[in-house]
């Protein structure tokens, strides 16, 4: 056991305790905006932390970088600008809301360590472009690292557990951490590339069981240019399908994702596959709900699922809500913030809505 513990120490990651500068994700904002708002709310209101949401930061350009239309020198300078904004705001710890961005930040910092002349050139570029100067963050975390760090504090406030209220058994949860979280630089991820714990730790702390299935670490299939260009999307759908086929025999109640892109693809490709092949995963032709970790934290803490945005996923979450025993109003589902009834979305042909 001591030997195991010693090995495990190599996979630990230091995560700052407080005072964070927050950089948002293009995809999480676009597809799961409530997740970012909830993350800020839980840190401030539930955990009493200091986190700064700076309107002056921009995209890191990461999707453009991995799709080869943005040079490395450019993305390094954009990230350096974010570090400059952090410094000017008086912060040293950064939280990154996107796995693609997180991977890029790790790649850039490691590049600067190995090639100090590249760091100096980036400083020059940033100063020339903006007259700004930057420090490298003291601590860098993905936003899921923060939820992981405080998973037990969240567990202390749980209103609902990841337990099937009818059977009394833990829910079966598939977790997908996203390739760029730790496949490139394992030391930056909780549990590294081999034993990622960032989502599994939350699931276990909140009462669920993690499913270990053959294609657990396979890519969701985003592939950057393989999705961005319509002609290539077969690649993207095929990779998600490989994962669905692999997890299906384990009858998962939920897919929990780390990366906003993965969340979107695992949700939307279930629809596409249902249209292409009349194949619907999950029980009763309802699909397998796919959630962000912010959405899951919100559910267990008792927040309204419709304020978290679950109604705007293609795969609907009612089966999961029923299993968890969550009380919710069906009438409130498609209403505006001020309570005005909105139209109802169309039901897909092969998914029970």
């Amino acid at each position, binding site marked *: 056991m001591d030997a195991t513990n010693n090995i495990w120490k190599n996979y630990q990651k230091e995560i700052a305790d407080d005072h964070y500068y927050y950089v948002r994700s293009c995809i999480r904002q676009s597809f799961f905006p409530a997740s970012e708002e909830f993350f800020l709310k839980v840190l401030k209101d539930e955990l009493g932390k200091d986190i700064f949401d700076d309107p002056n930061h921009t995209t890191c350009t*990461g999707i*453009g970088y991995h799709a080869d*239309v943005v040079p490395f020198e450019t993305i390094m300078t954009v990230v350096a600008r974010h570090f400059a904004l952090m410094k000017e705001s008086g912060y040293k710890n950064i939280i990154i809301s996107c796995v693609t961005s997180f991977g890029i930040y790790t790649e850039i910092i490691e590049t600067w360590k190995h090639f100090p002349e590249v760091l100096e050139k980036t400083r020059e570029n940033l100063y020339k*472009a903006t007259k700004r100067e930057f420090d490298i963050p003291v601590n860098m975390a993905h936003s899921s690292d923060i939820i992981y760090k405080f998973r037990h504090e969240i567990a202390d406030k749980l209103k609902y557990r990841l337990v099937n209220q009818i059977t009394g058994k833990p829910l079966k949860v598939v977790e997908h951490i996203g390739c760029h979280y730790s496949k490139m630089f394992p030391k930056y991820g909780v549990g590294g590339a081999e034993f990622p714990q960032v989502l599994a730790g939350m699931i276990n702390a909140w009462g669920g069981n993690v499913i270990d299935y053959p294609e657990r670490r396979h890519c969701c299939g985003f*592939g950057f240019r393989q999705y961005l260009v319509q002609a290539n999307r077969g*690649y993207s759908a095929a990779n998600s399908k490989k994962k669905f086929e692999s997890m299906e025999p384990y009858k998962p109640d939920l897919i929990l994702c780390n990366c906003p892109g993965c969340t979107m693809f695992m949700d939307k490709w279930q629809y596409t596959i249902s249209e292409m092949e009349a194949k619907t995963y999950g029980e009763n032709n309802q699909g397998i709900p796919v959630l962000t970790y912010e959405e899951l934290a919100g559910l267990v803490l008792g927040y309204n699922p419709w304020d978290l945005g679950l109604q*705007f996923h293609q795969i609907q979450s009612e089966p999961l809500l029923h299993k968890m025993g969550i009380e919710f109003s069906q009438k409130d589902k498609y209403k505006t913030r001020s309570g005005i009834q909105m139209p109802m979305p169309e039901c897909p042909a092969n998914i029970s809505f």
Partner: protein
Amino acid sequence: MGKLYDLLLQDIRFEEGLNACMNCGVCTAICPAAEFYKYDPREIVDTVQTKDESKIEALMRGETIWYCGQCMSCKTRCPRGNTPAMVIMALRTLSQKLGYFTDSEKGRQQFAIKRTVGENILKYGYCVPTYEVKPEMHPEQGPIWNYISENIEEVMERLGANLRKPGPGSMRQIHQSNLDELDKIFEVSGGYNMFNDIEQHSEKKANEMGLEFKKQGTDNEYFRHVYTFNSGNHSKE
């Protein structure tokens, strides 16, 4: 050492990504693209390390370098610490600089990515803002995306976003002063050079192919062609 290899060596990702490949094939075994496409990252790295000019040029003019999905699974698994996906990035960057990318069907798609994601970055400060994910270009997003697009103001307000408004929050409007800084960064760090390379070579190719090309936007034959055309010769059956 040949000229193309020298140019590749100037890319720090190439220097980091390729030490000495022993051809074990672990990268190919783990690679999602190798499972889907007629693609073998081991072969690409092996070809590059021969330093054979004509073979490297053929790679940069060909289809295979565009098959990688950048998942970086190869980095985790290579026993020599190589990263084929980073070697691929260096090859793609040089292919665009030299104009070789327009020789391949998959390479020509760079024009579509530049006109969408590339321009979103400078116009909005986001790679992929909600309002630029058009349902007609993304049928795979399903009926819920049609719904969100048709009711975007109400949906974003319900979810606590700050859609296209000043101040902080999800999908806020990025202030012009911040967009101006992005613009200057692209100017001093080579971002615009890459954009210009893609545009110039794409326009030339559109003319060769007899397809309508416009200086801006996505409403032109060449964009529609590179965005949607799939010869069907790429994937494994």
